């Protein structure tokens, strides 16, 4: 099962590398990507899927369809896709977007995934607030709510998420009764 975590910060600054790891009740994965420009990134994700009891990898491609900058905000719309090089029947594509100021964050995403077992879709909405505004280089903190639905499940799952961000490191932790812990680590260089 491909997760939605790596939609956040899906493209780095030009010539930037990003290493991400994610762990939740469905899968554990590591995703490494390179951004030749701010418009797109290419990368490889390796996953251990606990839901389908499977292991696989994806070549991933993310493209920035649209960005709008204002003095205090930035909004983005991305196309994302992934293809298993050993099994072309396993692939996914989708859209995700965000609107962000230094104080507020709103994000959304929709993804269709295909595999040998059962196709499924995922969608999410995320809202966040920064309780204080740090300067460049400070520790930044975000308090967020995420609500998501996977078509393999039966209902929306809503839970709080806390995100810490300093320098090149980011850690995001979420917890709910159904999906247990969502942990997302990221290092950019």
């Amino acid at each position, binding site marked *: 099962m491909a997760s939605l975590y790596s939609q956040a910060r899906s493209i780095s*600054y*030009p010539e930037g590398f990003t290493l991400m790891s994610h762990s939740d009740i469905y899968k554990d994965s590591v995703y490494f990507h390179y951004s030749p420009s*701010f418009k797109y990134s290419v990368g490889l994700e390796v996953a251990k899927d606990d839901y389908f009891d499977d292991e696989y990898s994806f070549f991933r491609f993310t493209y*920035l369809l649209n960005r709008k900058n204002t003095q205090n905000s*930035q909004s983005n719309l991305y196309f994302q896709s992934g293809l298993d090089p050993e099994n072309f029947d396993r692939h996914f594509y989708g859209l995700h977007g965000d609107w962000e100021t230094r104080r507020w964050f709103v994000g959304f995403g929709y993804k269709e995934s295909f595999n040998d077992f059962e196709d499924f879709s995922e969608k999410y909405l995320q809202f966040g*607030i920064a*309780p204080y505004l740090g*300067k460049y280089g400070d520790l930044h903190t975000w*308090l967020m*709510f995420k609500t998501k639905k996977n078509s393999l499940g039966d209902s929306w799952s809503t839970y709080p998420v806390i995100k810490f961000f300093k320098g090149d490191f980011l850690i995001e932790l979420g917890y709910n009764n159904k999906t247990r812990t969502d942990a997302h680590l990221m290092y950019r260089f």
Partner: protein
Amino acid sequence: MRLICLILMFMASIIFAEKNHDSHEHHGHTVHQNDVYVDGKKFKLDKERFDEFKKNLRDVQVAIINVQGMVCDFCARGIEKAFLKDTKVKKIDVDLENGKVVIAYSLNKKIEFKEIKEKILMNGQNATDYKLMKI
């Protein structure tokens, strides 16, 4: 449900506290901001920050650039990296709060706004205008 209500109340209290904090600080802040003059014109900058930037800098040209879309450290980091590739850049400071990038260039650098704009656009942000001063 109770947890959601509690968290919403917590977030609302943070917003309220932050608004109050901002309104108390504004008087003090105006003293520090809007008092950097370039060619006789006021330019909104944090004066303490700018003074710190200028410390130990001699015989340089300083470009103060207004940038749109600089909302997080990753944007700032990208801009910093892009400009530091230029050997004529002596120092750079990114002020997220005011949406400014301040760059000290050596005097033999011919500074063109077109080049600055392109570098910032390559990083995904927009430079809207700039001021140049000599120190």
